[in-house]
């Protein structure tokens, strides 16, 4: 590929900690850079003492920090900054974690720059100088390979698509500040309020390696689901029925209109496997289903299916895992 850097959008929490999938993207970026530098784009305040060692360990040479008085939670403002960094670096590939916010930002950047966008990729390669993306579509039933034909490629990558690995010799990233020239148009949306979600104490649902999901079959009692998730160090998710019933927050909803996940291990308990739900989880590495109905559609895609009552099977599995873990 060219000698221009590969850029990665450095998503971080309000307290400045890097979102876990960003490390995966940086690892992926190194395989694509082919000797060219891997550089990051950071929106907002940067706690150099906390962030730079993590980024240096991922081989990041430069962190482009966007500085502005406008609100960097607004996609139009971030897009202004990203367009500026693309221009300044000449980069032809930018990777970002798959999230609704990033899709908003990249849609804008694409319209402004003529770049091509692929969302929800689970693999990226460079073939004959072209960026080629891999993704699963149609609720996880098909896979596609898609080349970006525009000069600049913007790709959102799903969490858990690559295993993050640090470089052997960590770098000291340089910081390049970019005073973002925020257009009048980008200031027209006002962020009236933003409430960060309280930390659940469990891994982040979108990027967890293990997710245990409860559906209508829990009848509102998520205790066995939570217990198994905790033994496995996993996150807790839910079907829309469970979130609509108010048994758990809407942010736990897995599916086409909720969070899309592709963990190494998905366990669904009391989940029928409706197509809307499958669309958000069918790309998971291994799928386990516990359901009392042998005809539940989720068994069609389960690697390990148990026809049984979740209230006996889940606690027994949790107890056995605890015993095996000693």
């Amino acid at each position, binding site marked *: 590929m060219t000698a221009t850097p590969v850029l990665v959008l450095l998503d971080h929490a309000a307290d400045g900690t890097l979102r876990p999938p960003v490390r995966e993207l940086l690892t992926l970026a190194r395989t694509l850079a082919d000797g060219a530098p891997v550089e990051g784009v950071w929106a907002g305040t940067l706690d150099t003492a906390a962030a730079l060692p993590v980024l240096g360990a991922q081989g990041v040479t430069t962190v482009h920090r966007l500085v502005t008085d406008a609100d960097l939670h607004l996609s139009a403002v971030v897009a202004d900054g990203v367009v500026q960094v693309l221009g300044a670096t000449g980069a032809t590939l930018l990777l970002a974690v798959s999230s609704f916010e990033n899709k908003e930002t990249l849609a804008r950047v694409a319209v402004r720059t003529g770049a091509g966008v692929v969302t929800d990729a689970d693999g990226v390669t460079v073939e004959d100088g072209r960026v080629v993306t891999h993704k699963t579509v149609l609720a996880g039933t098909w896979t596609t390979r898609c080349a970006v*034909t525009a000069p600049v490629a913007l790709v959102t990558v799903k969490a858990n698509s690559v295993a993050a690995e640090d470089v052997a010799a960590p770098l000291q990233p340089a910081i390049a500040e970019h005073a973002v020239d925020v257009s009048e148009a980008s200031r027209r949306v006002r962020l009236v309020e933003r409430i960060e979600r309280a930390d659940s104490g469990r891994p982040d*649902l979108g990027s967890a390696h293990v997710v245990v999901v409860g559906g209508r079959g829990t009848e509102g009692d998520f205790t066995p689901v939570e217990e198994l998730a905790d033994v496995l160090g996993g996150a807790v998710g839910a079907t829309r029925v469970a979130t609509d019933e108010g048994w758990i927050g809407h942010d736990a909803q897995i599916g086409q209109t909720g969070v899309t996940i592709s963990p190494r291990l998905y366990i669904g308990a009391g989940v029928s496997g409706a197509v809307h739900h499958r669309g958000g989880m069918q790309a998971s590495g291994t799928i386990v289903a516990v359901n009392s109905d042998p005809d539940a559609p989720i068994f069609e895609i389960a690697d390990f299916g*148990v026809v049984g009552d979740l209230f006996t099977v889940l606690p027994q599995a949790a107890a056995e895992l605890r015993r095996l873990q000693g």
Partner: protein
Amino acid sequence: MRIVVCVKFVPDIQSDRQLGPDGRVVRDGGDGTLNELDENAVEAALTLVEEHGGEVVVLTVGPDDAVDAVRKGLQMGADAAVHVLDDAAAGSDALGTAAVLAAAVRHLSAASPVDLVVTGMAGLDGLTSLLPTALAEHLDLPALPLAAELAVDPGAGTVTVTRNLDHASEVLSATLPALVSVTDQINEPRYPNFKGIMAARKKPVETLTLADVGVDPATVGLAGARTQVLEAAPRPPREDRVLVTDTGDAGTRLAAWLVDRRLV
């Protein structure tokens, strides 16, 4: 208020969906439908007009059959429909479609100003969710995406939404005209009743070409696409699948299987 709702014609997600060698969804007729999530968009627009007065126009870009999508919108209660139908638009990616929709909205605004553009949160075919913000960018409108709640203050000329993101919830507000995309949490879409279905037959569906809305065919469709599908294949079925019926020890067996597979 004059509201334009963008609705997409997609293959029914309950059907056996297939991709052709070009990576496009095979549309073999009969199993296409109005994107379910766009029913929420139509419902949101109808609710606003019921509250504040005005007109709802449903707009689609798509093949012949796509007229079914706008017809469903008319049956739900929209006042008029526009279908941009042009072979040269076929194969557009989200950004090409955004350019066409933007031109169509401009065309509609020329007749009478549009106060609000409403879209669904995603097309259940590709789930890209790129279109709403790309469209806003083309139209130079403020975008308030993923509304779980939506309110318009016609006096102040403002629109406010509440949205729930992975890590936070936000309240966004802007001055009209603006673009809003809505989630499936915002409302329960109405079913067209008999009266609505009959009334829809008399409502106008305007069919426009790219030339009518002023789009250069070379910039959209396959010709203008910025991505190209190289290969599409059905995912191989999962192998070595195990199904056990609990006779008292299934939880223990599940745990052993997880350990054996090195998943814990």
